[in-house]
């Protein structure tokens, strides 16, 4: 994992309370579980019908019937439960998940999220993302601040088809921690050495900088 992605995963890992029920998306969000602070144990919910999903199994210990939402071999920890997809999404939509961590193609200042298609190019589908974003109590977007080509991802208004309207609460990138509020996007923490001017230059939406901005660890 690149340094930027490790920085993001580490910061997201400190956003939970012990015992929170959390659904981690595929890719960078999955790595969050590797950085949980001492004393913080989460109930990981996996959309394919598991609670207490654990780490990947040791080689040779794979179970053909236990995978994570990305299709990789996984494990179920003591206290885990298995259920069907209707139950899994009742848990999600019903507000029983404390937080979800997802990647994004675009997020905007109103908390709109686009992460399921680029028309005419890549159309993977939304999978469980639309339900997760609508149903989880807290929606955390964990992503690199700009695209590989340096284009904005945090916008005034999303231009790609939306995953959900006004559901995103937090954005964590390698540059900082941002909270989406009715007033706009408030920068709560900046990565070491990053100035307000630098993060603003890489963000299309206007950012709000309060007086006390902590350093992101």
């Amino acid at each position, binding site marked *: 994992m690149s340094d930027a992605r490790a920085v993001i995963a580490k910061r997201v890992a400190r956003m939970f309370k012990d015992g929170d029920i959390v659904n981690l998306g595929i890719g960078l969000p999955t790595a969050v579980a590797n950085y949980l602070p001492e004393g913080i144990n989460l109930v990981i919910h996996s*959309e394919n019908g*598991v609670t207490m999903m654990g780490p990947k199994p040791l080689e040779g210990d794979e179970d*053909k019937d236990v*995978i994570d939402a990305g299709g990789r071999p996984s494990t179920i920890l003591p206290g885990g439960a*298995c259920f*069907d997809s*209707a139950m899994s*999404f009742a848990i999600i939509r019903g507000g029983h998940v404390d937080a979800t961590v997802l990647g994004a193609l675009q997020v905007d200042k109103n908390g709109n999220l686009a992460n399921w298609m680029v028309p005419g190019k890549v159309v993977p589908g*939304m999978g469980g993302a639309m339900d997760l974003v609508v*149903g989880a109590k807290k929606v955390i977007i964990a992503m690199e601040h700009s695209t590989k080509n340096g284009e904005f991802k945090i916008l005034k208004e999303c231009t790609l088809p939306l995953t959900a309207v006004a559901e995103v609460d937090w954005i964590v990138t390698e540059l900082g921690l941002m909270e989406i509020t009715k007033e706009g996007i408030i920068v709560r923490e900046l990565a070491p050495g990053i100035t307000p001017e630098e993060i603003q230059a890489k963000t299309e939406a206007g950012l709000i900088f309060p007086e006390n901005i902590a350093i992101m660890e």
Partner: protein
Amino acid sequence: MMDKVTNIEEIKKSVTAGKTIMIGGFLNVGAPEKLVDMLIEKDMKDLTIITNDTSFPGKGPAKLIERKMVKKLICTHIGTNPETGRQLNAGEIEVEFNPQGTFVERIRSAGAGLGGFLTPTGVGTLVAQGKQIISVGDRDYILELPLKADIALIKAWKADRMGNLVYRRSARNFTPLMAMAAELVIVEAENIVETGSLDPDEVMTPSILVDMIIPGGYENE
């Protein structure tokens, strides 16, 4: 009707062209490989397939896509199968994407005799296009309609001869719902046991929903 265990030739006779077929499984876990192969052996065309994803290349429902047997796909995600994406972009296949919670609840609705359900998922997105929006209290919901099939092809970990089913770990996923939502429900079971040997409390899908059973399901082991 107390013994539903049969062979693949009998199943081939029961499956005829022009059908809408549900296939269980999440990224191939819980997918009935042998029943998918049966569709290939029959060389069926123009199928409408209802399945969560199209698996990984060469596995489960992906094999139907690769052989161009599918006219329309109703699913939630195709990102793990580049060939499905290629056919979609080339206009060779029609794909209807559903949010996963909506997808499974539509199937459940069909099986449960409901006229549909109201979900907040997808409000304000492309998913809402052409659908009725109903406000309850201060929140908008999409009216989503039932999704049923002619045939469901599913996998169980254990089946008794009468058709009571038990699933294992994350292989359960969409299967119990699909077993409710199709005219003909065909099960590929990893283990077939005598009727009466399953504890009634252990049964996840009651036998009344199941029509035919064949042994199989161990290709991935």
